[in-house]
């Protein structure tokens, strides 16, 4: 919302200057976004006198002027057709920034067709201070040399732009702004009641309300014999200052009142109306050619204005072309109605029309302003356009008033810590237009009809606190929490922190990628759940909630490769979505590597592969206190993994905690990625919680006194048997004594029958008491038997 300082002072008797007004706006909650002060903007420019203007010897359209300026006599080459000897003009010194042209003059004089020019003479348009089409500003000769340009051009009025919060539609009128500033201490509100223009004939236009819930009141009047010429200069200047293009008196008056009083109006050419004007709901099949030149379909949810010809306007949103006023209009019908905010908002959303009327009606227009607004329009139109006025025709009634609010003055201190005297509270509330019935501890307060945000005591507390000023609030640090200190993070958050650090320490760069991905890519990772599709995506490639983090990491790794970084190692710990329920979101830790072949003088080192991914994944699990032995490796169960070079990680037959290995080459190809890529994704929610002990004391260390014993064993086994089966069966022979079995060799080829492989591992035995050679031999025999039984493996001789 924009307004000018002089416009404000129409409604506010104040001694405050611009800076004071800005400070008070801040205090009252009107957040200033921009201030354009022409005095400041035009500070470099001053009035000059052209002593002589002669034609440029080498250019027909240029004149060489000798100009008397505040900086002394200057030679200025000027292209304006109206530059002439004896003229009073505006001088721009070298180096000045010309706002309307958005450039600054050179700091040194420049030669134009061989003649030096030591400055510039400007048009009002070039200074954004008015319109002039004949060339440079041609000022009255009585204006003395050196007068500031802003003053000379009559453009001294600062324009203030501020944010109107949705709760304060009354700030969409300058009068409403003045009321709050008066209450904040800026001065006194000037209440201007419009003159009641007595009508000399009955309003010839009948008004009917067929949908009183959508339009409960509609006031209208006709002026006959009006001249719809341009509106007065002051009105045009104000409208332009707030960003509204002046059109004609009738239209400008409605726009002016919309900005002055937050009261939208509409004008119809009465000669183009046929039959009564009806506010009703739309009918299927109807449409309207609106003032923006577009045609809109009408729906039964919309409130429309219609006459015998059909729909002539969308109530509170936009009028139609068929009944619009023009320069030839002599009889005008002025509408001042009230439209239901919710319905207006819906109509606005459906049509996509953003108009000043919609903006006001959907936030709430003061219903009491219907008749006052009409009278003000009649007064202004009559004053500047003449004609004779009909009696007002008011159909319907103002909707019921807002209820009284019970305000507890003690709430001010309870909720804000501010101690405010009741007299001060009363002053503020009254300045804002509330009426008070005092009943001691509880006040019954009636809000003014332009306030729709008053429901309860806390709402009044805010009014008082903001107008006293939030600077006056005490500053109190929080007390210690009740019940002492607890751990601040949850187990899942701890897992996030630890896994991020482990992965970064192992050489991965942390990514934070979108929670969404392209639906066609998401389909490669999981069956598409329509509940996870975004219906209004910001971009078509971000239309599905991700079922896995890996897709986004893969795309990022490929982008990095395209930019000359082929070996990206990326990770992200963040959400994945398995459904749209509150419990369907998981926190996953995912890492992805696009292996880069790096040569080395000792021979080619191991490139990143499925086993490297496995090592990184187990490093995370280890750091999270999850013993690796508790997990089982099984074939992959998600479509984006290589069927043979990737695996799932399970905790028993039912729970899958993650996957690791090579990404499916077909998936990478479908995403336009050069393979291969390796990685893992762990579901941090699926990991079991560690047992918490009631005490922080650690159990006593039980040191093993006897040294471990190690024996190597090699088995011949079918190639399809996973190594983990041999290890599990070996350990299973005696879980008390055997602490580990570590594979150190896997061999196929000469000496091993076809279809078999040799797997060798070292068994580590941790004796509890002294073991004899016979004991160890017997234990090894049990290991061999257990492996044979479990896997069909035969001890290699």
């Amino acid at each position, binding site marked *: 919302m924009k307004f000018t300082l002089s416009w404000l002072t129409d409604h506010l008797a104040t001694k405050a200057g611009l800076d004071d007004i800005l400070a008070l706006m*801040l205090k009252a*909650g009107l957040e200033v976004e921009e201030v354009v002060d022409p005095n400041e903007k035009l500070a470099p420019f001053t009035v000059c006198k052209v002593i002589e203007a002669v034609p440029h010897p080498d250019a027909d359209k240029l004149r060489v002027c000798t100009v008397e300026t505040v900086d002394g006599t200057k030679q200025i080459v000027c292209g304006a057709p109206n530059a002439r000897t004896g003229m009073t003009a505006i001088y721009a010194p070298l180096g000045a920034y010309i706002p309307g042209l958005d450039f600054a003059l050179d700091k040194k004089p420049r030669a134009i067709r061989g003649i030096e020019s030591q400055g510039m003479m400007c048009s009002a348009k070039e200074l954004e201070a008015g319109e002039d089409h004949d060339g440079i500003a041609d000022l009255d000769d009585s204006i003395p040399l050196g007068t500031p340009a802003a003053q000379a051009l009559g453009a001294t009025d600062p324009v203030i732009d501020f944010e109107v919060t949705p*709760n304060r539609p009354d700030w969409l009128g300058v009068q409403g702004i003045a009321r709050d500033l008066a209450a904040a201490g800026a001065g006194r509100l000037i209440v201007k009641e419009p003159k009641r223009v007595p009508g000399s004939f009955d309003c010839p236009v009948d008004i009917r309300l067929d949908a009183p819930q959508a339009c409960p009141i509609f006031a209208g009047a006709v002026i006959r014999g009006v001249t719809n010429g341009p509106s007065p200069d002051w009105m045009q200047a104000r409208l332009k200052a707030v960003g509204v293009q002046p059109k004609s008196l009738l239209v400008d008056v409605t726009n002016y009142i919309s900005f002055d009083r937050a009261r939208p109006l509409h004008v119809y050419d009465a000669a183009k109306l046929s039959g009564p004007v009806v506010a009703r709901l739309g009918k299927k099949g109807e449409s309207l050619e609106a003032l923006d030149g577009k045609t809109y379909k009408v729906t039964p949810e919309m409130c429309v204005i219609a006459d015998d010809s059909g729909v002539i306007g969308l109530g509170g949103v936009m009028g139609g072309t068929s009944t619009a006023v023009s320069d030839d209009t002599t009889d005008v019908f002025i509408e001042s109605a009230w439209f239901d905010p*919710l319905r207006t*908002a819906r109509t606005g*959303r459906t049509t996509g029309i953003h108009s000043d009327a919609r903006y006001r009606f959907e936030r709430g227009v003061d219903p009491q302003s219907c008749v006052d607004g009409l009278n003000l329009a009649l007064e202004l139109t009559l004053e500047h356009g003449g004609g004779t006025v009909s009696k007002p025709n008011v159909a319907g009634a103002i909707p019921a008033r807002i209820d009284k609010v019970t305000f507890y003055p003690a709430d001010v201190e*309870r*909720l*804000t*810590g*501010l101690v405010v005297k009741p007299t001060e509270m009363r002053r503020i509330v009254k300045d804002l237009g509330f009426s008070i019935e005092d009943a001691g501890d509880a006040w019954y307060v009636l809000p003014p009809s332009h306030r729709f945000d008053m429901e*309860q*005591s*806390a709402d009044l507390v*805010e009014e008082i606190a*903001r107008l006293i000023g*939030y*600077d006056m*609030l005490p*500053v*109190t640090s*929080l007390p210690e*929490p*009740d019940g002492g*200190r607890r*751990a*601040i*993070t949850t187990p899942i*958050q701890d897992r996030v922190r630890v896994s991020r*650090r*482990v*992965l*970064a*320490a192992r*050489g991965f*760069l*942390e990514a*934070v*990628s*979108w*929670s969404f991905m392209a639906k066609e890519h998401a389909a490669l990772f999981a069956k598409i759940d*329509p*509940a*996870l*599709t*975004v*219906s*209004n995506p910001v*971009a078509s490639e*971000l239309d599905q*909630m991700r079922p896995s983090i890996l897709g*986004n990491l893969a795309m990022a790794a490929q982008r990095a490769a395209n930019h000359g970084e082929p070996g*990206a*190692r990326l*990770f992200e710990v963040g*959400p994945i979505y398995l459904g*749209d329920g*509150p419990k*369907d979101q998981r926190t996953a830790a995912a890492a992805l590597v696009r292996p880069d072949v790096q040569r080395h003088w000792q021979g080619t*080192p191991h490139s990143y592969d499925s086993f490297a991914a496995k090592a990184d994944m187990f490093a995370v699990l280890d750091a999270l206190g999850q013993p690796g032995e508790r997990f089982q490796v099984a074939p992959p169960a998600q479509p984006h993994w290589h069927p043979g070079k990737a695996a799932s990680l399970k905790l028993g037959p039912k729970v899958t905690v993650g996957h690791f290995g090579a990404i499916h080459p077909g998936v990478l190809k479908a995403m336009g990625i050069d393979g291969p890529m390796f990685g893992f994704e762990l579901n941090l929610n699926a990991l079991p919680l560690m047992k918490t002990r009631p005490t922080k004391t650690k159990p006593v260390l039980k040191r093993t006194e006897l040294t471990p014993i190690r024996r190597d064993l090699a088995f011949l086994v079918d190639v399809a048997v996973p190594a983990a089966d041999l290890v599990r069966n070996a350990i299973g022979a005696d879980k008390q004594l055997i602490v580990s079995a570590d594979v150190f060799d896997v061999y196929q080829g000469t000496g091993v029958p076809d279809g078999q492989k040799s797997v060798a591992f070292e068994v580590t035995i941790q004796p509890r008491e002294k073991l004899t050679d016979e004991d160890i031999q017997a234990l090894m025999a049990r290991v061999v038997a257990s492996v044979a039984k479990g896997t069909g493996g035969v001890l290699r001789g």
Partner: protein
Amino acid sequence: MSDIKTIEKEALAAIQAAPSLEALDAVRVAELGKKGRVSGLMSGLGKMTPDERKENGPKLNALKVAVDEAVRARKAQLEAEALEAQLATETIDLTLPPAPGPRTGTLHPVMQVFEEIAAIFGDMGFTVAEGPDIEDDWHNFTALNFPEGHPARETHDTFFMDAPEGGTPKVLRTHTSPVQIRTMMSEKPPIRILVPGRVYRNDWDATHTPMFHQVEGLVIEKGIHMGHLKGCLIDFVKAFFEVDDVVSRFRPHFFPFTEPSAEMDVQCERSGGIVEVGKGTDWLEVLGCGMVHPNVLRNCGLDPAEHQGFAFGMGVDRLAMLKYGMPDLRPYFEADPQWTRHYGFAPWTTPSVSGGLS
């Protein structure tokens, strides 16, 4: 036994002259071995008279010790020489690179700033709470006192999920505030929580991304008023920006879920695209806050006459930008290794109030 001296002299000379460990061992055997010269003299002691023995015993013993020590010394010397000779052949060029491995990775600045914020508020007794990104309309809007159809909803540029036929579409949460509702409905006051999380708005330009990060705070406790809100947040910005003093101000604002509501600005200096907090005369908005709206308390089953407190919410990406001088929001979500290495944090940096945040 004049030959003891001679033997000693000969033996020591032979030991000293032994060129190798093998030769030295031969000398040792010849003198001290079972059939050696010194051993032979020692075994002669048994045939001597007690007086002879008394005289020759110590001399022979001394001879044995002297020869033995000389052997050991020469052995150590020969071994040292051998090692030196061996090492002389073992030089490698250590200017060559080791086998390539990854450089240490980095942590994302937004995640780091989340932890910094949690450390500061954790020190004030807040605990961290979380909620889902896909929310229903009630938790994201209605319960937070956004009336159906109210223009305040439109300011949120909401992402909607595809709704089942005839159903109300779910939304991607537009703020972390729904977690206020979830917490107040599942826990009894006193409540002091901090909610970090991803939030979503349908807006993408130089200063907006469709996904960004917020931290929400909620305190519901007896006697908590707006002065506490100010105190808590002033304490926060001082700790967060790690400067001696931050000048801040609170302005009235509107949020449907707080009453009274405010925005907090901090004083800063802007020059050359960089914003420095803690000096200058410009102002920078850092967060929105206010006393929890009575309607919100009621929606969560709390009686506003009995319970009160404050809430605040801040954009983490922008705070990270400000503190660490990142000029642009957009690369945050591109996972660009160059950017991440440059602006990221070492994995061993753990923000804490006692150890320094950054």
